[in-house]
């Protein structure tokens, strides 16, 4: 405890705040670690999530020296660092940065990297590595990070020479955010971060095949618009590409002019306002009856920034069976991967939609009006579907229904909060019952379906958007996977709000066991769980609980209208199911509504 040597050196270091200024006139000789930090700063980074270890000691030494320019947030587990960086990236559109050590540090980061890969989130993850001289010898804390992460990154590097470092970092940021974004891993051996090298700002990589942006083909656009104008029952199926490309305005402009129905995927939520009269709500496995029926009966499906994921299409052969398909996506490999379109365009969603809107505006009003008239019956039909089976829940006096929690959350936050979720039933209810107004208001792990994503991602999102209310909506299962990060929020006074939809079980698995496995509830019971209120208090956070519907509003208001770290344990009905549901691999006709 009382070790004067340690405390003196600590005091000495605290006294010397070095933080060297960036001098652009000279080419200084710096060590690798400092080159890394300066390159990060040059790429606009001011926020890093991480956890130190042996292989990144030099880098952390520079994190310390540059602490007035780089805000480093110390997480308690590396998975939390990557999820927080993802939350930051998803909420802001900027590149998120995580820094972890070699071996277990890197393997703990893998879940987060894969989550970002599946949802096309721009990340740069820096991992330490054992010194180059001992790579391949099974050295302490050595794993082949380059090999392990290869299938779950957009690109990765093992930097063997400090002279490559600056160029690698610059290229990594370019790759992470260009085209279809994704995670990039930079593996840096310890000796490389220690070596000295001349540092030149914004060094270009000597070897990069930057694929040039293709101009929008105006003939293709014209052809697409013609098809849409003539369609009797068209529908827009839009996904994460709208959010990533920031194409909401362009989409709105186009569909409003022609009064076309729109259905977003789980990842596309917010890309088109749920409250808009043209929105039919989400489609797919837990999508609305109206959205799924409209896709099934459509004669033209305009798919933008989507990849025909199995959770959307169900059985591929019977997905949109009568429709001609127009597919617009930035990733050529998405086109024809699952469903062959009749007409496709490789383009950024924003550019494509802008060109489509401009094409439309150059046309005569008469043409637009006669096109709209074609769809009078279609809208009548859609309204019938909407009336036939709207999203609903049975209210109860004795038990809190999970759907009510989301509706109440919407009221208390006035529909303005950024909602970050985990994965499972609560995620689907949040997607269904919280009407979203704008892009990046809804952050969720869609592709990989990572439980434990919500809480740390909410920390990152809150740091990216300090003036907005951020709420992590999680289940009692996922919460227990990453709840160690509550202390990160406490440490940095981040107003983390966690709403636990506590049904005492792994709800979505339980629902499938109920529906498809004769109620054999195999290993889904979580009724033996910690007292979440006491757990919150142990962390120094505020813990609140609601068990009856009458307590719900008060708890949400007390929990959300302040800047404390608050864990709200909302005890909800255990055996409640998410409806509608189209069982996996089946088609819309097999949709179960209740």
């Amino acid at each position, binding site marked *: 405890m009382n070790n004067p040597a340690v405390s003196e050196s600590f005091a000495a270091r605290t006294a010397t705040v070095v933080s060297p200024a960036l001098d652009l006139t000279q080419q200084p000789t710096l060590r690798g670690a400092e080159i890394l930090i300066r390159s990060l700063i040059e790429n606009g980074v001011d926020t890093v999530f991480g956890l130190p270890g042996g292989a990144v000691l030099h880098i952390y030494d520079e994190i310390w020296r540059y602490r007035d320019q780089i805000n480093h947030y110390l997480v308690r587990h590396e998975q939390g660092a990557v999820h927080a960086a993802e939350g930051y990236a998803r909420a802001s559109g900027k590149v998120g940065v995580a820094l972890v050590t070699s071996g277990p540090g890197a393997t703990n980061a893998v879940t987060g990297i894969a989550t970002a890969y599946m949802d096309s989130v721009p990340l740069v993850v820096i991992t330490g590595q054992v010194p180059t001289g001992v790579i391949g010898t099974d050295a302490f804390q050595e794993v082949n990070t380059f090999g392990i992460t*290869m*299938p779950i990154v957009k690109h990765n590097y093992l930097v063997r020479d400090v002279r490559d470092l600056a160029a690698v970092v610059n290229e990594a940021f370019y790759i992470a955010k260009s085209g279809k974004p994704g995670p990039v891993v930079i593996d840096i051996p310890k000796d490389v971060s220690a070596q000295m090298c001349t540092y030149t700002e914004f060094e270009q990589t000597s*070897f990069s095949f930057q694929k040039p942006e293709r101009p929008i083909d105006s003939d293709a656009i014209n052809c697409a618009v013609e098809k849409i104008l003539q369609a009797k029952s068209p529908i827009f199926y839009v996904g994460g590409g709208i959010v990533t490309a920031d194409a909401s305005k362009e989409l709105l402009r186009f569909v409003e002019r022609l009064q076309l129905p729109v259905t977003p995927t789980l990842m596309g939520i917010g890309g088109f306002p749920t409250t808009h009269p043209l929105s039919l709500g989400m489609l797919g496995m837990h999508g609305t009856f109206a959205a799924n029926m409209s896709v099934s009966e459509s004669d033209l499906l305009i798919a933008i920034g989507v990849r025909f994921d199995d959770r959307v299409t169900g059985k591929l052969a019977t997905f949109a069976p009568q429709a001609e398909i127009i597919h617009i996506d930035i990733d050529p490999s998405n086109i024809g991967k699952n469903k062959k379109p009749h007409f496709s365009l490789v383009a950024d969603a924003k550019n494509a939609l802008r060109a489509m809107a401009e094409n439309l505006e150059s046309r005569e009003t008469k043409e637009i009006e006669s096109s709209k008239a074609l769809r009078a019956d279609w809208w009548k039909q859609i309204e019938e579907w909407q009336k036939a089976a709207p999203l609903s829940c049975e209210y109860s006096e004795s038990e809190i229904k999970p759907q009510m929690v989301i509706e109440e959350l919407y009221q208390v936050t006035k529909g303005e909060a950024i909602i970050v979720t985990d994965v499972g039933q609560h995620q689907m209810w949040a997607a269904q019952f919280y009407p979203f107004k704008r892009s990046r208001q809804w952050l969720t792990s869609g592709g990989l379906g990572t439980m434990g994503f919500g809480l740390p991602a909410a920390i990152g999102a809150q740091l990216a958007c300090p003036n907005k209310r951020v709420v992590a909506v999680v289940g009692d299962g996922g919460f227990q996977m990453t709840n160690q990060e509550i202390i990160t929020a406490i440490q940095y006074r981040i107003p983390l709000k966690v709403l636990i939809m506590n049904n005492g079980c792994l709800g979505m698995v339980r629902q499938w066991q109920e529906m498809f496995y004769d109620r054999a509830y195999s290993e889904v019971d979580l009724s033996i769980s910690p007292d979440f209120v006491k757990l919150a208090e142990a962390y120094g956070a505020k813990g609140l609980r609601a068990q009856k519907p009458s307590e719900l509003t008060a708890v949400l208001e007390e929990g959300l209208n302040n800047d404390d770290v608050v864990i709200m344990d909302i005890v909800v009905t255990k055996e409640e199911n998410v409806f509608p549901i189209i069982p996996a691999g089946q088609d819309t006709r097999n949709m179960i509504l209740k």
Partner: protein
Amino acid sequence: MRHTISILVANQAGELSRIVGLFSGRGYNIDTISVGKTLDPKLSRATIVTIGNETTVEQIVKQCSQLTRVREVRVVAAPHIEREMALIDVNAKSGVERQEILNLVGIFRAKVVDMSHDKIVLEASGNSDKVDTFIELLKPFGVNDVTRTGCVAINRLSPFEKIEDDTEEFLTKSL
């Protein structure tokens, strides 16, 4: 369907593994693969022979071209030359056997590269079928070992006709 895919990729550590990993990860099949430097020492060419239908090949081309260090992916569809090489260790115990083997060597334009009292090592090259046939014909003598390279391919010069192949045109454009 058998397809020959030609990939131009940065000559850097790990890049081949990235391509091979993409094939295994997405369930594509690699029949043969051969890699070597090109005229530009910064670039390697990997020639991969794969079995798959049109859709699979289209996906392979698109997925491979998404890799950061891949410059060009081409399905070799125009008239082209393919070559594979094999080194074959075959028994030749008697003078008669040796004479018969040398006959075959002559017919297949192969080469004797090593010899002992009872064995011969032969070098054969040609398209896959030719090499297969040659090995098949040697089997009665007792083939001890075979080492084969993958397939390499290059377009024919075709000085008199313009190459017009829709498939190739489409695939190159879609990158």
